[in-house]
């Protein structure tokens, strides 16, 4: 039997699959077979590499060659050149935009240089559908260690000492949460994994589940051991079919290996996991809403206390943590709490995964140490702003977060600093905006989301957010007044102050942070009736340059509402009261005579 000398890791994350990485994998396999190399080199479909901007990605190990934007047609060349002859395919390597030089090893790419991958440690390295590969990377040894060497309290103490805080948004100390659940007496307890990632623009939980599902399973079992729960439940978005599939495969494999089920490692510890599906409700990220949803009810939150740790799923004590939080746990056990606590800032330890998106060059999933600055993330890892435009703002924390500006670029990122700056960590969405983004519209966008996703249970969130959105709409239409800005402020404060759950308590953040950081832009919309980014259609005006217009009538014919009049061969004019600002005239004009102001 020939030994496999080379692995071709093909990213099988949703991002790369959307650009047909499966076909790449298939082509590679075919090519290997054609060249009789299938015994020496193996194609592995892995989880997300993170560098989604350049997908599909193929990484060759052991020499760590990182190919980007690979097409199925490129497979033959990779096999023929690289696998067979050991020559790297230069044209598929990443081109460092600054040095204008290709980089073959991802460790030397600026995108990866500042990253520390703990939660994402296995994503892109292992075949997530093969438990042996997880085990080969020390998988399940943390569970074994806990069960055989530590008491539940000792494990809790390790987690407490590590300083790990919940990665789902709030940042509650994980060890403390476990301890509270462990101390409640009950005949049945539950360990729950919140995989209902709902922040539009965050996809780290899915990437972990798609790329390294066993790490979550292992951590849940450890949690079960600590809290005294024999049952685990993963509440996962139904919109994540691939993650569901891989998680189910992983659970089945773990059961087969005796790592889930009864008498795990012969220690008498029983633990098993079931899946529950979300059905499209952002509010179900809130733990009490999530629990109601798991019980087959409307996902409405309830007032806390009682906390789920006392009164959770089916009224039993339940410990809820999110995917990324769990993914950190096995490493902390193996490498020790001191190691973990050495990374990060004083109150925020370890790393955080961010989904970096928007107007940056390198869009993707990154994991960085707490305390890194926004500047490092956006300009080094992210490779700066797309198209050389001006950085304007970065939005963190999704619909619960806020927009930060250039002023905050050198702020070290951690839970407390982001909160102090009027935003929050949230689940880790990080959307970069440039000069073409209108901040009033961005606030409106988030409010639209919140209005859509509010459960409707409490009045400030149900009605207040609707009113906030209406006022923002009014401002974008150019009908806003200064009094409206005052209303926005008061309403936002009251909604934050009085809403029932985290959704409503944070939903005005996009408004408050943009009011705070981009007040001038609001005033421009209201007083000058101007949108500097050119986003708010109603504030724009199409006019015809009387000098440039030759009277060809093309614009008048293109206008869907007959707003343009003028004699043939005479300059035309646009009736502003009829114009719907569709821009059709501008598109049709061959003489650049239609102007947008």
């Amino acid at each position: 039997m020939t030994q496999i000398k080379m692995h071709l890791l093909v990213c099988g994350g949703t991002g790369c699959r959307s650009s047909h990485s499966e076909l790449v994998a298939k082509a590679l396999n075919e090519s290997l077979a054609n060249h009789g190399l299938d015994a020496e080199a193996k194609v592995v479909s892995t989880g997300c590499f993170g560098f989604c901007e350049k997908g599909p990605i193929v990484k060759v190990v052991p020499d760590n060659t990182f190919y980007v934007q690979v097409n199925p047609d490129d497979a033959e060349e990779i096999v023929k050149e690289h696998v067979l002859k050991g020559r790297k395919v230069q044209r598929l390597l990443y081109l460092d935009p600054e040095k204008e030089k290709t980089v073959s090893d991802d460790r030397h790419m600026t995108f990866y240089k500042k990253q520390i991958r703990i939660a994402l440690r296995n994503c892109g390295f292992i075949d997530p559908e093969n438990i042996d590969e997880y085990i080969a990377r020390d998988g399940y040894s943390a569970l074994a260690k806990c069960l055989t060497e530590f008491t539940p309290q000792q494990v809790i103490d390790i987690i407490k000492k590590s300083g790990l805080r919940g990665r789902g948004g709030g940042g509650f100390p994980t060890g403390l949460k476990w301890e509270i659940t462990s101390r409640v007496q009950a005949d049945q307890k539950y360990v729950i994994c919140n995989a209902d990632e709902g922040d539009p623009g965050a996809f780290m939980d899915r990437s972990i589940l798609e790329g390294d599902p066993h790490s979550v399973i292992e951590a849940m079992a450890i949690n079960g051991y600590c809290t005294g729960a024999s049952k685990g439940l993963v509440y996962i978005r139904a919109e994540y079919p691939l993650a569901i599939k891989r998680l189910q495969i992983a659970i089945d494999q773990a059961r087969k290996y005796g790592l889930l089920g009864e008498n795990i490692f012969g220690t008498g510890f029983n633990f098993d996991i079931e899946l529950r599906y979300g059905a499209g409700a952002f509010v179900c990220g809130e733990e009490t809403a999530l629990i109601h949803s798991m019980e087959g009810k409307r996902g409405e939150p309830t007032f806390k206390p009682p906390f789920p740790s006392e009164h959770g799923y089916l009224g039993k004590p339940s410990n809820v943590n999110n995917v990324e939080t769990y993914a950190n746990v096995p490493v902390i056990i193996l490498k020790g709490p001191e190691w973990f606590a050495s990374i990060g800032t004083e109150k925020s330890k370890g790393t955080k995964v961010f989904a970096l998106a928007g107007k940056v060059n390198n869009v993707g999933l990154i994991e960085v140490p707490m305390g890194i600055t926004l500047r490092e993330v956006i300009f080094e890892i992210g490779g700066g702003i797309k198209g050389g435009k001006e950085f304007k703002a970065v939005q963190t924390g999704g619909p619960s977060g806020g927009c930060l500006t250039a002023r905050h670029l050198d702020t070290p990122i951690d839970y407390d600093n982001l909160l102090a700056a009027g935003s929050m960590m949230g689940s880790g969405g990080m959307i970069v905006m440039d000069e073409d983004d209108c901040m009033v519209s961005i606030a409106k966008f988030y409010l639209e989301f919140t209005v859509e996703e509010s459960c409707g249970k409490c009045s400030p969130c149900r009605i207040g957010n609707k009113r906030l959105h209406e006022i923002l709409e009014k401002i974008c239409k150019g009908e806003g007044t200064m009094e409206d800005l005052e209303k926005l402020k008061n309403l936002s404060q009251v909604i934050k102050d009085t809403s029932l759950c985290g959704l409503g308590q944070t939903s005005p953040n996009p408004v408050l942070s943009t009011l705070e950081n981009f007040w001038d832009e609001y005033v421009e919309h209201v007083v000058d009736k101007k949108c500097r980014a050119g986003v708010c259609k109603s504030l724009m005006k199409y006019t015809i340059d009387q000098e440039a217009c030759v009277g060809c009538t093309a614009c008048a014919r293109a206008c869907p509402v007959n707003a343009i009049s003028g004699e043939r061969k005479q300059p035309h004019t646009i009736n502003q009261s009829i114009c719907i600002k569709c821009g059709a005239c501008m598109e049709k004009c061959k003489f650049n005579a239609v102007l947008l102001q």
Partner: protein
Amino acid sequence: METVKFTIDKKTIEVEKGTTVLNAAKKAGIDIPSLCYFSLDGMKIENKPGGCRVCVVEVEGRRNLAPACATEVTDGMVVRTNSMRVLNARRTVLELILSDHPFDCLVCAKSGNCELQSLAHRMGVREIPYQGAQSTYRKDTSPSIIRDVDKCIMCRRCEMMCNDVQTVGALSAINRGFMAVVAPAFEMNLEKSPCTYCGQCVAVCPTGALTEVDHTRDVISALADPTKTVIVQTAPAVRAALGEEFGLEPGTLVTGKMVTALRELGFDYVFDTDFAADLTIMEEGTELLDRLSRYLNGDKSIKLPILTSCCPAWVNFFEHNFPELKDVPSTARSPQQMFGSIAKSYFAKKLGIDRKDLVVVSIMPCLAKKYECQRDEFKVDGNPDVDFSISTRELANLIKLANIDFNSLPDGDFDHPLGESTGAGVIFGTTGGVIEAAVRTAYELHTKKPLPKITFEELRGLEGLRSATIDFDGLKLNIGIAHGLGNARKLLEDVRDGKSQFHAIEIMACPGGCIGGGGQPLHHGDASILRARQKAIYQEDANKPIRKSHENPYIIKLYEEFLGKPLSEKSHHLLHTHYFDKSTQIIVE
């Protein structure tokens, strides 16, 4: 009792552990406004979604404001209920609620009795600064209840009543966000839903979203029609609550004033449903004894327990939910319908008029009665036995409309023959009353001996489920009592599963029985009002010279002159009914 000490508006007080800020504040003389919160103390009925956020207070050390209704007091807690921050938040929240509420207060059925309106008044709201789109829905009118969902503020009280207390399941919160509202499935009409018309949703709705169908105009028209003889019957629970609408203390009996008022309104005869209640006892009591003796003699075709059937919402409930048990309840019609049937046969004949020229109006504490009197089986050639059923609240409106100064009215007496009743008829108005009345008669009919003691304290109370064993001179009769349909469901499930130990069960749909009916003056969650009404009912019973139905001379006369004897063919025809399967049917194509 474990207690905690806390400070509220600079007052330090000690309260029992587990007390909410809202209730603790009351003890300190601080009345925090609330809206969605609702409870009937001691009856295990509580609505605490923490949704309206009107009751928010400032708790020291807390980032945001806390809802007083859902926050428990802890030791050393410092609470402020009237800081600028609280007052501004509370007002803004109320303004938001009002901004999604129709502005038709002047013509709203709930005007003057609306909790949202009084809150706006209390907080001095003079304008609504946050105006915008309003959520609008189709209006729905059923035989008993009108839903105007535009006025729903998502307090969830009706949902709690319909599901947790009544287990009817006609209503649920639907949609989400701004369009979230409480409604039947698919926003269908109530008439197509499993609604029983118990009216408890109406009884707790703080706004005009749920109201009764108003029949006062029909009554006025009938009274004004010279070709019609208009008679009225008043249910027992009405007299114990009507006074509240005129500012009298809860529990004030206003039987005499009510009779006078009805006479002044122009009714030709003022009769009493209590008379028909006595008649019900004759039929139902005899049916009980008949079934019981046949059962004890080994007749396997006889099903026990026998269930009372005077509550129309309860009848609707088992027709929807337990159609397989439709042979179990007594076939006796409700007192309202027995009255109508006798009025339009026996009494019409006495007057020498056609039944179509006799209009029977009933004053009921109930909204299901409106539906009941429209049922086809209670019509003769399309003419209903009871033409219009109006609620206690509607009667009060009618009295006010007619410029009658209720409180200064002299006492009047019911007319004969259908106005004479016994104490047994009166106690129909409270939970446990029907079965007590039945026992009084059945005991004497069965044992042929006079009752040693007329009252049965063991059957009384406000516990949702009660039971007692009554010794019928050696025959031990197990009796069950349920009020609230959720409690009824438990007993019914036992009956269905063959586990019931009872010989007879009394069921009333509304918590407290008819005194807590959906048509009564609104109690706004004050359970002491229900207790006062119950006390008044038993007082009225104690005041009566005759307290056993079978001793009512007019009942005796009715049987002699007209019906023959209980369960006679004529009785069956006029006083009994049958039930229908109204459950959801799946038809396979």
